[in-house]
């Protein structure tokens, strides 16, 4: 019966297909990260000569009265609400004791045209702790690895909605889980949310060069190792919008750029 031999072949074919699917599943698992091939090198990478490089530093001051911080009701997630005995508040406007504004994303908007910078290999970290994102505002360079970590013992799903890069939506059901992602295209700013805990919010600023900073508890920022030239730098705040400023950096000079946001 030559027929039977053929059926055997079909059988083998079936088994092979099974294996292919299995391995394919493997590839899928690996590629589902949606990592893009590094488009950082549009040409050869620009070298910044430390001998001439200068820097921009400054402060983001805040005037007027900050709005009352909004209380978050976390009763839905007991594990979290316990962590905030006197209530958890949103981080929309955080004014430091020294009258400066935190969570402001400052970056070089123009002046670096034609220069390309290799993405740093060390990853930026977006952590999820007690139903909050840490940091609340994160700056990364295009194609720089971003490690998203879940430090809570329950499910978060990370659901950024970028315009220029591909949006993604992943779940992290377990404490200590980490997922690495990259954003191939510059964008100010990418909102990040968690559908399980509606109050969770973070912003990621993606720029195609290393000259960016986020103001912290002292409201100051610094953009070091900047080649001499004329720059426009911009400061972004989720409530008070953006401010621009033109700065000229001479050889080995340290220019200062202080911003001031006004509350109501």
């Amino acid at each position, binding site marked *: 019966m030559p027929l039977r031999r053929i059926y055997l072949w079909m059988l083998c074919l079936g088994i092979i297909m099974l294996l292919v699917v299995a391995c394919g599943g493997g590839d899928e698992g690996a590629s589902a990260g949606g990592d893009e091939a590094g488009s950082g090198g549009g040409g050869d990478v620009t070298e910044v000569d430390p001998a001439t490089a200068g820097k921009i530093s400054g402060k983001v001051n805040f005037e007027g009265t900050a709005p009352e911080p909004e209380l978050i*009701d976390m*009763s839905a997630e007991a594990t979290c609400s316990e962590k905030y005995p006197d209530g958890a508040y949103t981080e929309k406007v955080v004014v430091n004791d020294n009258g400066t504004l935190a969570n402001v994303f400052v970056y070089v908007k123009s002046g670096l045209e034609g220069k390309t910078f290799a993405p740093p290999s060390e990853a930026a970290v977006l952590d999820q702790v007690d139903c909050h994102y840490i940091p609340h505002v994160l700056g990364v360079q295009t194609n720089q690895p971003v490690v998203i970590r879940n430090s809570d013992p329950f499910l978060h799903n990370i659901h950024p909605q970028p315009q220029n890069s591909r949006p993604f939506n992943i779940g992290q059901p377990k404490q200590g889980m980490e997922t690495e992602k990259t954003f191939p295209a510059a964008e100010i700013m990418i909102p990040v949310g968690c*559908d399980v805990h509606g109050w969770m919010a973070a912003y990621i600023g993606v720029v195609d060069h290393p000259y960016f900073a986020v103001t912290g508890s002292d409201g100051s920022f610094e953009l070091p190792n900047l080649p001499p030239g004329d720059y426009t730098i911009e400061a972004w705040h989720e409530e008070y919008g953006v401010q621009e400023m033109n700065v000229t950096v001479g050889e080995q000079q340290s220019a200062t750029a202080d911003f001031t946001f006004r509350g109501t």
Partner: protein
Amino acid sequence: MGVFENVSTYGAQVDSLYLLVLIVTGVAFFLVEGVLIYFLIRYRHREGHRAMYTHGNRRVEIVWTVIPGFMLFGLAVYQYSAWTQIKIDRPNEAEAVVLSLEAEQFEWYAAYPGSDGELGTDDDIGSPVNVIHVPVNQPVIIRLTARDVLHSFFVPVLRIKQDAIPGTTIPVWFEATQPGEYEIVCAELCGLGHYRMRAFLTVESETEFQAWLAEMAAR
């Protein structure tokens, strides 16, 4: 067994119907399987034995068509009243606590009418996410809807389940008979957080309820 407890007015009826169906089907089950196994042993192949030559019997066919037929039909009719009570005859909104419940990936948002006694106005009292309070021994009508995809409002101890559909508002009613905190389950696949779309129903005395409402209103 936490889940077998029933705290709703019509829950007992549902349970009794469940029991009834269980008995009917249970009897049928043991009858059929028993006969099957008996025949299996009794009539297994023995040398020289020959099967009986028959193509059936009209009388028995009629018997075992008509009897189960009536049983099944009766079973159906017997369920009508309970179904009507749960899904069709809702108590009058005037003497019921009315609230709105909106489901969204993966949270439940409840709201209570404010001073104007109207839902959907801007003085509505919003309840914290995934938290619902209702008074005990009072009919409650939930205006159920969804914002994004299908969800399902399922309270096992109340024996009530209703899909929440975006673009449609479906009234769901129940009357809780015992104070306590009970789990609300999402029973319709709604995305990767479906398995955690959990909320809590607090049944409390009228006074506690009003106090809580006032506290929420104050915020």
